C-alpha cells in the first residue's frame, strides 16, 4: 500500500494548483487521499515492525508534500509527527539526547550532529528509519525477522525434535543444504509419530495444515528454508494428501515415516554415493582439485577418488565469515591427502595451479545457474577465465524451478554481526566495560567496525549465497548422470515433479 502511495504522489502534486479538476482527477485524488490515510493508520499500528516502519517512513513525507486534503485526512498522528516544522523536530531531539546514552544502538542514531538540515523534514519517519537504516535497501526484501534464538512465542504445536533442529540450524550446527534436509525430515518423522488426528477429520486432510505447517513456520523463523528442504516438504505434503482417508492412523503414520526414510535413502544417501563415484572419475592422476568452502558431496567425491588410489592434490579456498573450508581441509588432511588451504584473497593465484574445480550447491536454478555459498561465483569466474572445467556436484533434490539472474532476488541475509572479526568484537566489548572510565575518552570515541550500529552511514550486508552464471559451469554431476547446465529444468521436472522417488 505505501508503495502505491509513493507512485501516486508525484502525479498528484502538479494538479494541486489547478482549480478546475475533471471528475477523473477528482477520483484520483480521492484515491490518493484514501491511500495516504491508510498509510498513516498502518504507521500508527505497525511502528514496531522493522519492515513496516521502513516502508511507512518513506511514505509519510511524500504524503506531506501532497495535496492539502490528504494532510487533513491524516488525523492526529500526522500532525504530531510529520506536521512539525523542522526546527521544532530537531529541538525535540536535542532534548532527548541526554537520556539516550551510547549504550543503546537506537539512541545513538538520533544524534543531531549526523542530521543534515534538509533531511529533518523526513523526521516523521524517524522511528522507523532508525531500525531500517541498518538494512541495505536493495536487499530489504530479504530481511525477515532476526533469526530465532529463544523459545519466545513458539507455537505449542512445534515438536521438540523440530525445535532442536531449528535451533541447530540457526546456529549453523547443522549447515549445508543436504544436511538440513535430512535433519528436517528426521525431525518430521518424530513430529508425525506424535500426531493424533482429531475426531471428525482425516489425517490426509488435517495433518498438513494443522500439524506440519506450524513446524515449517517455526523452521522458517530459525533460518530461511533451503531449496532441498522446500522440495522435500512439497514431496511430503503430496504424500500426505494422497493417503487414503480410510487408512488407520498408526498405519498411515508408519507409512509416512517409512517413505521419509526411503526418501532420505534414495534421494540423498545413495544419490550422494552415486554422484561421488561419478564425479571422482573427473579426478585424474596428477589432478589438482580446487574447491571452495565445504560441501559434503565434494568431500565425498574427493575421498572416493583418494580411496581409488588416484594421486592428486587438493586446494581448499575458504573465506569469512563461516570458514567452512577449514573442516574440509582437516578431514582431507586426516586421510593423508596433500591439501593446500588458501584464503579467498589468494584465489587468483590458486586457480593457476588447479586443473579442475569441484563445487557444491545450495540450489541449481532452472536457467542453469548455480546458487551456492557466497564467493562461489568468483571462484567459477576465475576458473572459467583460466579455462579450467567447473564441475558442480548436486543432488536432484536441490534442483529448483526458480530462475535468478542476479544474487539480489533470491538470497538469505545472515546476521551482520557474523561479518565482524572476533578481534573487533573483543575491543567493542572491552570498550563497553570501560565506559565509565573517563581516562581514555579519545579511544572511546574512535569508532570501530564493531560500533557499526552507532555509525549512521555504515551498513553491513552479510549475504549467504551468490548466483554463478551457467556459462561458467562445465558440468553438473547428479544422480541422473552428467548434465550441461541447460538440462536442469528437465531433470527437475523428472525428479521433483514426476515423483520418481515417491
Amino acid at each position: 500500500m505505501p508503495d502505491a502511495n509513493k507512485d501516486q504522489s508525484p502525479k498528484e502534486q502538479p494538479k494541486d494548483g489547478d482549480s478546475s479538476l475533471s471528475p477523473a482527477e477528482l477520483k484520483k485524488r480521492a484515491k490518493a487521499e484514501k491511500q495516504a490515510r491508510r498509510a498513516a493508520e498502518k504507521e500508527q499500528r505497525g511502528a514496531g515492525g522493522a519492515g513496516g516502519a521502513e516502508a511507512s517512513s518513506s511514505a509519510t513525507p511524500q504524503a506531506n508534500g501532497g495535496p492539502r486534503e490528504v494532510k487533513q485526512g491524516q488525523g492526529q498522528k500526522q500532525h504530531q509527527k510529520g506536521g512539525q516544522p523542522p526546527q521544532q523536530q530537531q529541538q525535540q531531539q536535542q532534548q532527548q539526547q541526554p537520556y539516550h546514552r551510547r549504550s543503546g544502538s537506537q539512541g545513538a542514531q538520533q544524534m543531531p550532529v549526523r542530521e543534515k538540515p534538509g533531511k529533518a523534514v523526513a523526521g516523521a519517519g524517524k522511528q522507523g528509519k532508525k531500525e531500517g537504516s541498518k538494512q541495505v535497501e536493495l536487499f530489504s526484501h530479504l530481511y525477515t525477522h532476526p533469526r530465532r534464538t529463544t523459545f519466545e512465542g513458539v507455537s505449542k504445536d512445534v515438536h521438540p525434535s523440530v525445535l532442536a533442529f531449528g535451533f541447530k540450524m540457526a546456529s549453523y550446527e547443522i549447515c549445508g543444504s543436504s544436511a538440513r534436509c535430512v535433519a528436517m525430515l528426521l525431525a518430521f518423522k518424530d513430529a508425525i509419530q506424535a500426531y493424533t488426528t482429531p475426531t471428525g477429520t482425516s489425517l490426509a486432510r488435517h495433518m498438513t495444515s494443522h500439524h506440519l505447517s506450524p513446524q515449517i513456520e517455526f523452521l522458517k523463523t530459525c533460518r530461511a528454508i533451503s531449496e532441498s528442504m522446500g522440495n522435500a516438504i512439497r514431496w511430503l505434503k503430496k504424500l500426505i494428501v494422497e493417503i487414503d482417508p480410510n487408512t488407520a492412523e498408526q498405519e498411515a503414520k508408519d507409512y509416512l515415516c517409512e517413505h521419509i526414510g526411503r526418501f532420505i535413502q534414495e534421494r540423498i544417501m545413495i544419490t550422494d554415493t552415486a554422484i561421488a563415484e561419478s564425479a571422482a572419475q573427473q579426478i585424474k592422476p596428477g589432478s589438482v582439485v580446487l574447491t571452495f568452502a565445504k560441501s559434503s558431496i565434494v568431500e565425498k567425491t574427493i575421498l572416493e577418488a583418494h580411496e581409488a588410489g588416484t594421486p592428486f592434490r587438493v586446494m581448499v579456498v575458504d573465506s569469512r565469515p563461516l570458514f567452512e573450508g577449514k573442516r574440509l581441509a582437516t578431514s582431507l588432511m586426516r586421510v593423508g591427502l596433500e591439501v593446500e588451504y588458501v584464503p579467498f584473497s589468494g584465489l587468483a593465484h590458486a586457480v593457476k595451479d588447479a586443473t579442475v574445480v569441484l563445487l557444491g550447491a545450495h540450489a541449481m536454478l532452472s536457467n542453469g545457474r548455480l546458487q551456492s555459498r557466497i564467493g562461489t561465483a568468483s571462484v567459477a569466474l576465475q576458473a572459467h577465465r583460466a579455462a579450467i572445467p567447473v564441475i558442480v556436484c548436486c543432488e536432484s533434490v536441490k534442483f529448483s524451478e526458480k530462475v535468478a539472474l542476479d544474487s539480489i532476488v533470491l538470497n538469505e541475509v545472515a546476521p551482520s554481526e557474523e561479518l565482524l572479526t572476533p578481534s573487533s568484537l573483543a575491543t567493542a566489548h572491552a570498550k563497553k566495560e570501560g565506559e565509565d572510565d573517563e581516562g581514555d575518552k579519545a579511544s572511546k570515541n574512535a569508532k570501530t567496525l564493531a560500533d557499526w550500529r552507532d555509525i549512521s552511514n555504515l551498513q553491513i550486508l552479510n549475504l549467504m549465497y551468490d548466483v554463478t552464471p551457467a556459462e561458467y559451469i562445465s558440468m553438473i554431476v547428479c544422480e541422473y548422470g552428467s548434465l550441461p547446465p541447460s538440462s536442469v529444468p528437465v531433470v527437475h521436472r523428472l525428479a521433483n515433479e514426476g515423483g520418481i522417488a515417491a
Partner: protein
Amino acid sequence: MTSDNFDVVATYQQLLIEDPELTMPVAAIESLILALGATPASTMSETLHLVQTCTAELKKSIRNPISLSAGTDLFQQYLISNLQQRPSEGDFDVIRKHLVENGRLFVERAKAARETIAGFGRHFIRDGNVVLTNGGSRVVGALLRSAAESSKSSKTPGGSIRFKVIYVVSSDDSNYTSSEAAENIRALRERDVPVAVIQPSAVAYCMDQVTQVFVGAEGVVENGGVVNRMGTYQMAMIARATRKPFYVVSESHKFVRLYPLGQKDLGIEQDVLIFETASGPEVEDGKSESGIDEGIVADVDEVKERERRGDMALARLSREEAIDYTPPDLISGIITESGVLLPSAVSEELIKIWF
C-alpha cells in the same frame, strides 16, 4: 558364454563391408540383433547378459568405440525398457521375437534418417553460399547432394540453388577417408556444384569466403559437443573467430552418453603427440606408456614395433583415424532427423531415452 558359437565382431565387420552406407552404431545394433536371434536365450537376465557380453566384445575389438557405443547403449536401453514393460515371463520366445522384429524396424528407421536430415539441412543452403566441410561424412554428403538437386521450380532438371563447396581433405588421410571424400566430391561435381579441395592448413585462409560450415560426427556427446575427425575442432574455432555458423549433421542414434570436458576425456589413446629428440622419442620414466597423447611415430617400423608390443599399442588410433572433440559452445546447431537442435538439447534427448 552364450555367444561362443556366434562371432559378433565378425558379423559387425561383415555388415560394414557389405553395406557401405551403414553407420557404425547401426551396424552394432544390427549385429546385436543377429546375435540375439542366433542364440537361444530364454530369460530376461540371460538376454541382457548376452547383449552385455557382445557389447563388451565389440567395444574391445575396435580402437575407437565411441560411435559404436552410441548404438550398443541405445539398444541395451531399449531392450531394458522393453523387457520391463512386458513382465509376462511365460512366453519369453514371443517377447524375444518381438524384440528382434522391433530391432529390425529400428535399423530401417536409422537408415532412413539420413534422407530426413538431408531434407532439413538443405534449407540451410541458399544461392551464392559457400559451404565448408571436411572428411567423408556420408550424411553431410547426402545433405549437399540433396541441396544440389533441390530446385525451386520443377522445370529445370538440375538444382537451382547455386552454391560452392570447399572440401577439407588432408593429404595424409588414409585411402578409406579420401575415397569417401572423393566419392562425395565426384557426386557434387557431377551435379554442377563447383568443389574446391584444400588442405587443413588452408582453412583459416579460406574462411572469410565461407558462409557456413557443415561437419559430420562420429558421436554427439552429452553436453552437445561432437567427436569427429581430427581437425574439426580447429575448423570450429576458426569459424567462431570469423563468426560463421558451424553446423553438425548427425543422426540421433549417434548421441552417446559421454561427457568429455576436454580432449583427454575421450578415453581413447591416439598417436598424435610424440616428443622427439635427436636420439629418438622422448621416454618419460614409465609414464609415457600410460600417457594419452604420446604422439606419432615418424618411423613406420616403429609403429609396427609398437603394435607388436601388445594391446596398449593396438588400442591407439593412428594419425589417419585420429579424432578430436569440439565443445558445444562452438556449435551453432545440430541437424538431426528429429529437427535442428541446439547443442543443449542433446542432453535432454538423452535423458528422455534413459529415464
